[in-house]
């Protein structure tokens, strides 16, 4: 009745359903009406074209940060450094946007490329340490997050701007914003980055599934010793995986830097785009199409959640609980898998 593939698709769907269900019970428990709550969430995300535009805008960086985490996962690496790579990508895109004066056809790709390179460099270092010295990437990437955050703050304050809290806005020639998309969605901040994100998802799918290099990367992810025995260069694949993962994360930073905001500011804390990317990748099963769908769900929840307090009096924190519940059920997918297989057996 259920093929293995179907079970893999069903698990995240069941998890989301259970997460929403538990969220409804929690709302009930605190005396809120879950139907009104979810209706407000729906309206907050899709109520009119403005909110739909904002939802897509929020989805854009999530796709890329989700891809970044997923890509490293496929090679058996846990890249918690996506957050830091997002920040350096953000900084690089804005910096190139401000420092260089060029026509759009050169300027914009250059800014995007700079972000990808910066993120890649931030991923290269943990990859190198892992490949050459066996230093665990989780520890290094966590540290790199803080280095990125505070270096970026210091550069914004002392180098790019003149002791200010944020940089100038990047000029039109380096901006992903679009009058057309904005007017289409009643001045939402939807920008062309969405196309870049979708394109990146296609690239990830192609790279991992259709090239020999991708096969090697996945092989290293399945079993390093077997890969080494088969004559693959494990170290090089680890570094490559971290570099590509970092480049995706850097692009996510560019989405914010030259798309949503148009500037970089001194940050009091992490953006959480990278950390949410871990959840997106997990829910998306670490495959490109899954990440796109999961990012869409997360973006919807995040933007819709903003409407829950005004629309139905439900505190936004509850949405965080729902998201946590969804992740919990994905993480305990074994339980759901077991249940589904049970149903499958009985169905026979």
């Amino acid at each position, binding site marked *: 009745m259920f093929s293995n593939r179907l079970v893999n698709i069903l698990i995240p769907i069941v998890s989301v359903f259970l997460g929403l269900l538990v969220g*409804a*019970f929690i*709302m*009930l*428990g605190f*005396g*809120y*009406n*879950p*139907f*009104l709550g979810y209706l407000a969430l729906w309206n*907050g995300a899709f109520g*009119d074209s*403005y*909110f739909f535009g*904002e939802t897509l805008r*929020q989805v854009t960086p999530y796709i890329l940060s989700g891809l970044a985490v997923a890509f490293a996962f496929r090679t058996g690496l846990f890249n918690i450094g996506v957050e830091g790579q997002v920040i350096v990508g953000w900084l690089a895109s804005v910096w190139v946007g401000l420092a260089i004066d060029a026509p759009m056809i050169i300027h914009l790709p250059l800014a995007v490329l700079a972000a990808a390179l910066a993120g890649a460099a931030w991923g290269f270092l943990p990859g190198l340490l892992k490949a050459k010295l066996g230093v665990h990437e989780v520890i290094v990437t966590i540290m790199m997050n803080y280095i990125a955050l*505070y270096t970026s*703050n210091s550069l914004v*304050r002392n180098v790019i701007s003149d*002791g*200010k*809290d*944020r940089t100038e806005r990047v000029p039109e020639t380096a901006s992903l914003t679009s009058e057309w998309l904005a007017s289409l969605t009643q*001045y*939402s*901040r939807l920008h062309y980055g969405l196309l870049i994100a979708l394109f990146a998802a296609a690239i990830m799918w192609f790279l991992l599934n259709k090239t020999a290099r991708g096969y090697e990367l996945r092989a290293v992810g399945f079993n390093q010793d077997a890969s080494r025995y088969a004559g693959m260069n494990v170290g090089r694949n680890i570094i490559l995986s971290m570099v590509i993962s970092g480049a995706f994360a850097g692009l996510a930073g560019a989405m*914010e830097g030259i798309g*949503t*905001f148009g*500037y970089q*500011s*001194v*940050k*009091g*804390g992490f*953006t*959480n785009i990278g950390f949410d990317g871990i959840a997106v990748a997990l829910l998306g099963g670490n495959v490109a199409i899954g990440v796109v769908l999961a990012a869409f769900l997360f973006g919807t929840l*995040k*933007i819709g*959640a*903003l*409407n829950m*307090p*005004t*629309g*139905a*009096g439900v505190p*936004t924190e509850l949405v965080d609980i729902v998201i946590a519940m969804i992740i919990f059920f994905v993480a305990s997918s074994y339980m759901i898998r077991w*249940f589904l297989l*049970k*149903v499958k057996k*009985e169905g026979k």
Partner: protein
Amino acid sequence: MKSRRFLLVFSLLLALGMILGACGSSEGGSNESDGSNGGNGNSEEGSKDDFSVAMVTDVGGIDDKSFNQSAWEGLQAFGKENGMEKGQGIDYAQSASDADYNTNLNRLVRSDYDLIFGIGFLLAPAIEEVADQNPETKFSIVDSVVEKDNVASIVFKEHQGSFLVGVAAAMKTESDQVGFIGGVDSDLINKFEAGFRAGVKSVNPAIEVKVQYAGAFDAPDDGKAIASNMYSQGVDVIYHASGGTGNGVFAQAKDLKQNDPERNIWVIGVDRDQHEEGQIGDMNVTLTSMVKRVDIAVQDISTKAMNGEFPGGEVVEYGLEDDAISVATTNEEAMTEEIKTAVEDWKQKIVDGEVEVPSTQEEAKSFIDSL
């Protein structure tokens, strides 16, 4: 068997849900009517009856024990005066990240609020953008300046208040070392630092002021670590201007006080009177607080806007003379008559213009050099 048991549990949960649902629905119903009312504010501009105000918090949230909370208290006071309540005439939207500011502002514009406050300098770029797109709606930004005809900028003379708590700190210290812990190293927090240093040095130029920035407004663990470091170096009074990070400063001070009740350990609070945060048994480590009455400002601007006197395009400054900046004297034991008198004297000098309190680091330097 097992799946049957699962079904039983599931159906029990469902039944529980139904029961709870019955309890919850009446409240939900009233919420719905609340929500629909706030919306129709803008139909007649300037008319008092359907004037509506809302605010967008920064990432600190509505219950930050600091200026977001204070601003909401101001709106509530305004609502009480004019027979409004949450959802009916006044409301707030909370932001979870920097990216939410625009979305929240636009949501409120779409709900036809007449006046929308952005609380905190972090919202300045968002207000600038949204105010441009919606010239018909009035906006107001706290702690920053946005030059648009439909935006009233509210700024406070925090340097004045910081100067006065600096005076109190200088008189209270026994080790001649005081500390300043800032949130993020930014123009706004530099203002606090400049005023504080000037105040301390005005009383006694020999007192050393140790300055450190935590780099975040929401990192109590960092605040605790920095405070621990400062206190162990001999600092005995710390003034924090760091929002939630300051909770760690209070925690550290209370720990030290508990271990050694005789020790001279003080914290100076910020934004609100943080007397409660410093309470430990029957002792209190809060010397005083630099109180910034965001509520007074918010209430004032709302009232002006309702009466058609909205100061659009202007920068409205609130300071000691409006009582929007003050020094708390709740801890009567610690704030001796001597200190209070000195603070009052300096306050008079500032209000009379005899003393020009520096508001940037450069100004502070030349001010201290000139002493």
